[in-house]
């Protein structure tokens, strides 16, 4: 049986709360006594929601960012229901019980290079070795942009400055743009045209000249399906992060399954990130 990264149940402390927009909070969590465990972009955590009588189950929330220097884990929470509203009303100094890290994250550049060794790539003769030049496109919509920040940082840290393509209904839906710009080029779309190009992410002009070697996407399912279709047409490997409703988050209850080419598999354990070739989209 495949054993993944060691998982922990931790009582983290809310160190700082950003409120970038109405109904959105970024929780900066820390472990006051130990370094946070290893976590990978695209993985998620399950938080216990205390003080919300109508919330019974933990809430799965993707890892927005990990700041190793400050020993912080960031969670971007969109307050849409009783559980997420309770999380949004936490105060600095409160404790939050978290299970982490969960699931399989995005493939990172080193692994992607190995996977695509047979695929056509640009090479550099400078070093005398064949060197792969990777061009990563990270496509996000709404609160689904959250895991792309940590992913962008990790991709950039491996020597590939990514392009972010972020979409929302209007400018106020686009969060953390200054942070995204730290790690890559940022292209925007809004449905009302209040920021970037008007329309959906799949209608952005960058697709006309797209020569990306890999696409990663997270956001509303219709958006990800459209991105996956485009990626397939362009012959670019694509990974998508799903958010099926979960109970345990550990692969035990089999509630969050996605129908894949390998049958029903747990999004919490086999995913949440899947190669779109495996999905029946």
């Amino acid at each position, binding site marked *: *049986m495949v054993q993944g990264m060691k998982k922990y149940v931790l009582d983290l402390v809310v160190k700082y709360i950003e409120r970038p927009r109405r109904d959105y909070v970024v929780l900066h969590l820390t472990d006051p006594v130990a370094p946070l465990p290893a976590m990978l972009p695209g993985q998620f955590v399950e938080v216990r929601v205390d003080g919300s009588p109508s919330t*019974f189950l933990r809430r799965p929330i993707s890892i927005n960012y990990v700041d190793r220097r400050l020993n912080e884990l960031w969670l971007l929470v969109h307050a849409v229901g009783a559980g997420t509203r309770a999380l949004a009303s936490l105060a600095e100094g409160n404790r939050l019980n978290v299970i982490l890290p969960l699931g399989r994250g995005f493939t990172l550049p080193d692994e992607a290079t190995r996977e695509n060794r047979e695929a056509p790539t640009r090479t550099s003769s400078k070093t005398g070795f064949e060197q792969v030049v990777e061009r990563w496109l990270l496509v996000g919509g709404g609160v689904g942009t959250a895991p792309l920040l940590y992913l962008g940082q990790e991709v950039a840290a491996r020597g590939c400055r990514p392009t972010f393509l972020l979409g929302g209904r209007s400018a106020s839906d686009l969060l953390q743009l200054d942070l995204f710009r730290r790690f890559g080029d940022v292209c925007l779309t809004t449905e009302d045209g209040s920021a970037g190009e008007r329309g959906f992410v799949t209608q952005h002009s960058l697709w006309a000249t797209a020569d990306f070697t890999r696409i990663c996407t997270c956001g509303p399912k219709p958006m990800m399906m459209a991105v996956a279709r485009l990626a397939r047409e362009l012959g670019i490997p694509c990974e998508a992060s799903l958010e099926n409703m979960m*109970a345990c988050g550990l692969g035990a209850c*089999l509630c*969050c*399954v*996605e*129908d894949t080419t390998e049958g*029903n598999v747990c999004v919490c354990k086999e995913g949440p990130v899947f190669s779109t070739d495996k999905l029946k989209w």
Partner: protein
Amino acid sequence: MADLHTHIGALELKNPVMTASGTFGYGLEFADFVDLDQIGGIIVKGTTLEPRQGNAYPRMAETAQGMLNCVGLQNKGVDYFCEHIYPEVRKINTAVLVNVSGNSPETYAECARRIAELEDIPAIELNISCPNVRQGGMAFGVTCEGAASVVKAVRAVYPKTLIVKLSPNVTSIADIARAVEAEGADAVSLINTLMGMAIDAERRRPVLSIGTGGLSGPAVKPVALRMVWQVYDAVKIPIVGLGGIMNATDAVEFLLAGASAIEIGTANFIDPAVTVKVVRGIEEYLTRHDFSSVRDIIGLAHVEH
């Protein structure tokens, strides 16, 4: 220190806390959080003769103090279990039980026969109460004749400890318990989930893919406790109690109602280390009330009233 050993027929458990099928995977999924060896018993995911894909997504709905599921017995089949999972779970130093399901007395019996060959599986829990499959499952568990037919077929081929998991979706659970006892069941476990449903008012559709599902969690505890209480008066074989147990106090209540052991299910999703905490909590309870053995409190709430 109080003695936590308890017996389910010939099966001795080191303590009365087991995990409910379908809520703890194969145990290994929880190894990062709990010392599996400290749990009294682990009942692994429902297993059928053939591999099953289960029902379509969505399979889960959160409810007040509980949840609904309609997983529908997704599993890779008994052969896969024997070849790939058994070699791993047999290393766990506690009683590992398999929950067995089927769609006819013959398929139940054949699955049980295969499991009987596994040296380190000392008992099975026969699932005649799954509310989420069309054929078999609960269909057998809601009549005395149906329940008896499955138990009779399995008993003929399964010599080890046979626990029969009962459905609460019946008029008289005591009658069903008596019927399976008469066919030679060594114990009964109760309750499986209560049939329920959730509707999405905005979409004007049921939430779950098959419409209905099984309710679990603290919401069902009073019903489960009452049924354990009634079955204790109806049969002589031991009872394994489950339904909404979240902590040691809940567990003690089931023991007092007449259960010889208990199972923890949905609570594993909230606290993956809950099982071992409940073991310690039961021990504390016994010490605090000067009981030398957990066996001394089984059924103790049954006084004249």
